[in-house]
């Protein structure tokens, strides 16, 4: 890795956890994509990856990971890319992004009924 000039501030956490990468493949994750871990953390893994695998034993949205890890959403997406590339997580994408004409009447009806019953 290329040596950087010493900063007069503490190393930036966002820079550290992402290894300097600044963009995830934005199509891979929505802010409410549900992440599910497919394995237990392994020794030597980056601590943020370990935390993500623990938090996602049950489905967990990207924004919830962001809140729990106290990292911006886009930084969490970068971390998730690593885990997805190595098959350690699976992703359940929001169906709203797949329907070009907007949400279907059936979906809206389902949401309406569910909200009336909360």
């Amino acid at each position, binding site marked *: 890795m290329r040596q950087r000039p010493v*900063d007069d501030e503490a190393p*930036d956490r*966002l*820079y550290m956890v*992402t290894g*300097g990468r*600044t*963009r995830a493949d*934005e199509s891979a994750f*929505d*802010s*409410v*994509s*549900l992440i599910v871990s497919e394995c237990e953390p392994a020794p030597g893994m980056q601590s943020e990856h370990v935390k993500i695998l623990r*938090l996602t*034993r*049950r*489905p*967990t*949205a990207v*924004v*919830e990971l*962001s*809140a*729990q890890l*106290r990292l*911006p*959403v*886009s*930084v969490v997406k970068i971390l998730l890319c690593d885990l997805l590339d190595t098959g350690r997580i699976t992703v*359940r994408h*929001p*169906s*709203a*992004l797949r329907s070009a*004409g*907007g*949400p*279907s*009447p059936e979906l*809206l*009806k*389902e*949401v*309406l009924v*569910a*909200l*009336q019953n*909360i």
Partner: protein
Amino acid sequence: MPSRTSERAALRATAADALKIVIVGGLGVGKTTMVGAVSEIRPLSTEEVMTEAGAGIDDTRRVRGKTTTTVAFDFGRITLTESKVLYLFGAPGQQRFWYVWDQLFSGSLGAVVLVDTRRLQDSWYSIDRLEHHRMPFVVAVNRFTEGPGVDAVRDALSLPDTVPLVDCDARLRHSSKDVLVTLLRHLTTWYAPAQETTS
């Protein structure tokens, strides 16, 4: 204990499809209050890093340095069915927030513009931006004081008759729920014509 709290708040293992509704409004108008009134979890806060529109960040120094702007937002959620969960976002309406709209809120079902009648001007920009993004919305007046009636508010916001405008008390679960139900009814008509005809 934090770990127990997070386990209790976990989604069902069958959760497979998350939906989004955004509550937009100025500072102190009651967005987080409304999210908290209907959410099954205590509202969480997080932030997003603002990137250049459509271009992302190419220069890593922008992430490390002070030029990066972050936009904070709150959210909660409601489990709707075995597989569906609705995320409710409380989002600030100020100008820089709209740069992260596509990053965070593309694919939202719709939006609620939460209004304080003492600061109606705070809502103009949000309404303009929602129209720009072709995002259907309803307007909810959070009643802090008596203030002008809904007709006067509609006039002041130059709101067309097709956009529902309701009074609410964001502190109350049933009142906030009614706002969401109003939005869903509006969405049913808003999305219908586009699916029946392409012209």
